[in-house]
């Protein structure tokens, strides 16, 4: 029976009332008295030397308050990077300075050169057109392999080359992997690219800086997934503002997909300028500007080799990847192709030997950083593609080949440094074959054929590491931050509750699902519980929302704090009921003495805590408020089997996704409806990457897909009705809720399923096509068929 509240109930999202009626409060809705408007003049050249910037014409324009250039930021730090990678040779990565405004050189189209602050946005924009910038164009660095060749022009003159790092993992395995591949019965090789994407959250970025001379306090309102992280990075590393004088507020956030994790120059600028000008400064990103200033995602070029014995048992895996960093290191960029990618290369398989090499490269393009899945989609894509190709080369059914190699015993320590706690991959595969009616494929293919279409079925089985992350482990791996989460549970006198969490929803429905957890634990209605987030002034220091961590890590902190609350409330109840604490049971919002009808309601206990007339003051303090910090013992490992069915038009190469099924194991589920929504959104994004989205530069470093006229977002008619199942449950063993995380899975598992389906369709029709690079646009598919 479906529950109507608490853990496991498909409670409707309480935040949707305001979102759907236009009552949300987003950063751009914040307008402060006397605010001025910032307009960023951005480079339209990919690579060049700045000879001079003449702002005098602009300064004389109507409404202009001030024009800023790099020289105004001499006493200010650069935008910091939050992760340091140590390479194969034990050297730390090359880390160029990332100035707030371009210093001496422009390094990508969109690099900010100057900022005009004016009374209105139009005036600021008019004045920006009057700034005279003299730039000598330099040869742009675009192709990653050419970028690391001898004699290549350098993006950063003060670095030795364009190579950020050359990472090997696990370096000690390198020779053994080479040997195993040399001696294997069969080796399947695949070269592929993982296409660069633009995140495109519905709400573009906004920053409003404010400064109070009276209190010397700075406030930054910003579109962020993690306001505390921004406060730490910007306060400590860029502007030198201590935390108690810096408040960062991220109100409702309209999507992020990772690109709102990072600390951006515009945030630092508005905070800085507000103090300089003694008035609030607001910047609102236009959609066109977002394309050239939000961090992009993916952009890997990879060669992968899979060695097998005669029965198709995997013996060794070797992958070589060039990962594009863009022109500067965005906040978490170095971690994405390394620790979020290399550690997932075992997938669901018992491959004993794995070696991953990643060369991270600077180019004259927009910085690249985490985007929904971050590293794990890149790992899953290459692995699930090479496994599919291997199945065809070995003449083994792709389902069967996967099953032969599935990990079946848990916990399982992979050769790439992580330990999977639980999983049941045969169960998810069985579930997928069932819900997708795999057995009926032949009949459907015949029907397609009768209509002149080529039908194919593609499978992918993914694993991801979420619930990011154990702080001591990531510290060893180079993180310059801890990755715990925090919660304060404040019970009010009459029993209602405010939960202050360091996680921050940017569309995931935390206000609903977090309240369900607390409601379930105490047994009071969820409408007695509010979730407070997004403001450093009223939430404990927390690390924010990304990496499918909010329920697994943030939710666990809430559980821990609520347990402390219950434990204290139980003591108070025992006192009120004149019973032993051990005999007190909490059920349905009342404390009862076990085996009796003596009970006291939740609200009476909480009132006693704040009006402690009859209260054990000598034993416990009054009040009922507790904080917990939760640092996970391990990552969580959601996994699942995805099946995609496509029809290809042989005349035009157009691919239609006619069916898509997802069987996920997310551990325990708090709100099935929200989980289904997360998976559906992820699948749409994954199908977008596989078939439609292509962030491409021309040979001059100009962005070819710089607007929706050329960048193809998936639309409703591009995706089928999804079949989503999450009834396969192996609970996480190390967090109190037994949850694993579901936010990224859809985007991780779907691209290889789609591509495998298209290859399947073409091969069934007799085309000798083994790979097509994403996006599988009609012209690429047609070209592959007509080679």
């Amino acid at each position: 029976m479906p529950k109507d509240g608490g853990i496991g109930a498909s409670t409707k999202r309480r935040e949707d009332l305001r979102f759907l009626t236009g009552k949300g409060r987003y950063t751009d809705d914040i307008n402060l008295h006397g605010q001025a408007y910032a307009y960023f003049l951005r480079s339209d050249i990919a690579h060049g030397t700045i000879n001079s910037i003449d702002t005098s014409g602009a300064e004389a324009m109507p409404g202009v308050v001030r024009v800023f250039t790099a020289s105004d930021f001499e006493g200010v730090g650069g935008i910091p990077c939050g992760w340091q990678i140590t390479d194969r040779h034990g050297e730390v990565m090359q880390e160029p300075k990332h100035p707030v405004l371009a210093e001496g050189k422009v390094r990508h189209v969109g690099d900010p050169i100057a900022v005009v602050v004016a009374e209105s946005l139009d005036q600021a924009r008019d004045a920006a057109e009057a700034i005279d910038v003299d730039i000598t164009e330099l040869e742009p660095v675009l192709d990653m392999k050419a970028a690391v060749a001898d004699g290549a022009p350098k993006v950063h003159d003060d670095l030795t080359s364009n190579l950020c790092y050359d990472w090997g993992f696990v370096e000690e395995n390198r020779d053994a992997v080479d040997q195993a591949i040399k001696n294997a019965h069969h080796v399947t090789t695949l070269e592929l690219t993982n296409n660069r994407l633009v995140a495109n959250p519905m709400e573009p970025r906004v920053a409003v800086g404010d400064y109070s001379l009276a209190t010397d306090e700075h406030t930054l309102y910003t579109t962020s997934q993690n306001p505390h992280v921004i406060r730490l990075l910007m306060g400590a590393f860029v502007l030198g503002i201590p935390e108690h004088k810096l408040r960062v507020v991220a109100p409702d956030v309209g999507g992020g997909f990772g690109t709102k994790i990072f600390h951006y120059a515009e945030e630092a600028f508005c905070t800085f300028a507000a103090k300089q000008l003694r008035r609030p400064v607001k910047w609102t990103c236009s959609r066109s500007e977002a394309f050239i200033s939000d961090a992009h995602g993916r952009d890997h070029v990879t060669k992968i080799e899979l060695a097998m014995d005669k029965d198709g048992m995997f013996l060794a895996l070797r992958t070589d990847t060039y990962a594009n960093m863009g022109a500067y290191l965005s906040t978490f960029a170095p971690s994405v192709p390394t620790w979020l990618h290399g550690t997932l290369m075992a997938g669901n398989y018992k491959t004993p030997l794995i070696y991953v090499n990643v060369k991270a490269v600077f180019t004259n393009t927009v910085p690249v950083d985490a985007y929904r899945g971050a590293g794990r989609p890149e790992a899953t894509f290459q692995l699930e593609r090479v496994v599919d190709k291997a199945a065809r080369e070995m003449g083994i059914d792709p389902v069967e080949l996967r099953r032969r190699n599935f990990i079946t015993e848990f916990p399982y320590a992979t050769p790439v440094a992580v330990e999977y706690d639980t999983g049941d991959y045969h169960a998810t595969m069985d579930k997928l074959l069932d819900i997708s009616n795999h057995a009926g494929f032949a009949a459907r293919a015949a029907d397609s054929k009768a209509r002149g279409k080529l039908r194919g079925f593609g499978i992918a089985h993914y694993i991801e590491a979420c619930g990011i992350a154990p702080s001591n482990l990531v510290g060893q791996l180079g993180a310059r931050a801890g990755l715990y989460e925090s919660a304060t549970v404040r019970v009010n006198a009459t029993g209602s509750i405010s939960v202050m969490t360091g996680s921050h929803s940017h569309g995931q429905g935390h206000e609903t699902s977090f309240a369900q957890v607390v409601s379930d634990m105490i047994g009071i209605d969820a409408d007695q519980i509010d979730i407070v987030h997004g403001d450093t002034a009223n939430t404990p220091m927390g690390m924010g929302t990304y990496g499918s961590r909010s329920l697994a890590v943030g939710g666990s902190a809430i559980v821990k704090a609520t347990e402390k609350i219950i434990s204290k409330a139980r003591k108070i109840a025992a006192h009120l009921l004149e019973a032993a604490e051990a005999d007190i049971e909490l059920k349905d919002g009342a404390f009862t003495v076990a085996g009796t009808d003596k009970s006291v309601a939740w609200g009476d206990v909480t009132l006693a805590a704040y009006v402690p007339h009859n209260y054990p003051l000598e034993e416990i303090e009054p009040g009922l408020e507790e904080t917990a910090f939760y640092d996970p013992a391990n990552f969580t490992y959601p996994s699942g089997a995805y099946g995609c069915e496509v029809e290809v038009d042989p005349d035009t190469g157009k691919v239609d996704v006619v069916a898509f099924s997802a069987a996920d194991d997310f551990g325990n589920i708090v709100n099935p409806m929200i989980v289904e929504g997360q998976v559906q959104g992820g699948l749409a994004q994954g199908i977008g990457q596989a078939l439609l989205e292509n962030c491409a530069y021309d040979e001059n470093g100009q962005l070819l897909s710089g607007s929706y006229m050329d960048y193809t977002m998936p639309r409703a008619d591009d995706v089928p009705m999804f079949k989503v199942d999450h009834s396969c449950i192996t609970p996480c063993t190390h967090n109190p809720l037994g949850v694993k995380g579901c936010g990224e899975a859809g985007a991780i598992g779907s691209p290889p399923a789609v591509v495998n389906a298209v290859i399947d369709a073409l091969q069934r029709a007799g085309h000798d096509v083994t790979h097509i690079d994403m996006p599988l646009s009609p012209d690429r598919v047609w070209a592959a068929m007509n080679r």
Partner: protein
Amino acid sequence: MHNFDFAKPATIADAVAALQGDEAQPLGGGQTLIPTMKQRLAAPEVLVSLTHIPDMQGVCTNDAGQLCIGGATTHATVAREAASSFPGLAHLAAHIGDPAVRNRGTIGGSLANNDPSACYPAAALGTGATICTNLREITADDYFQGMFDTALDEGEIITEVRLPIPQAAHYEKFVQPASRFALTGVFVAKYQDHVRVAVTGASENGVFRWADAEAALSQSFASDAVADLSVDPDHMIHDLHASKEYRANLVKVGTMRSVKKAK
């Protein structure tokens, strides 16, 4: 967007007069012009709106068997009003952009702009339409002069478009995935004694007639008639979305499908 003055004449004559100014420009539905102004790529000082001129509105048929469409008639109106008289054209109009675009964008604006991937140019050329302006009548064969280039003079406005109604016609559109303009679109119209085939989206020279296909289909109006023909990819457009060869293929596939679907 820069500031501009706005004129809203009620007659063609007033519109022509208002356009005499130096930096004046006609405004149809604004679906192309307004975004261009927002990007600051155009900055007219006066916009002369044509959508309030009754003489430039509506769809009717004349005694010569032509469908006459007022120059400021929206795509949505054409989709609705041509549905029974000229279903091939109504289908084309119904597949331009999205509802907002169709409720504002006009046939005159589309033809004046002559975007190489716009749909209406294929119908105008594919029917041998007459483009009527405040000054003259121009045949479609003379009107289209390359990408974004037409026979219109400065300040000249399209007041009406007259399209000979075919026995059967169809427009097959392959969409550019992002913009959903025509990556390639083929308009085929069958008349008593001849067939016209016009292609948009494909050529570097804008909309063009595929003469070989017209000849073959005039002999036999069946998709097989073009099975052995091909267009030279040489002057096709190559961009992020498609190669020259792919577009050449679409010209043929689109022609065959249009013949099959013509009604």
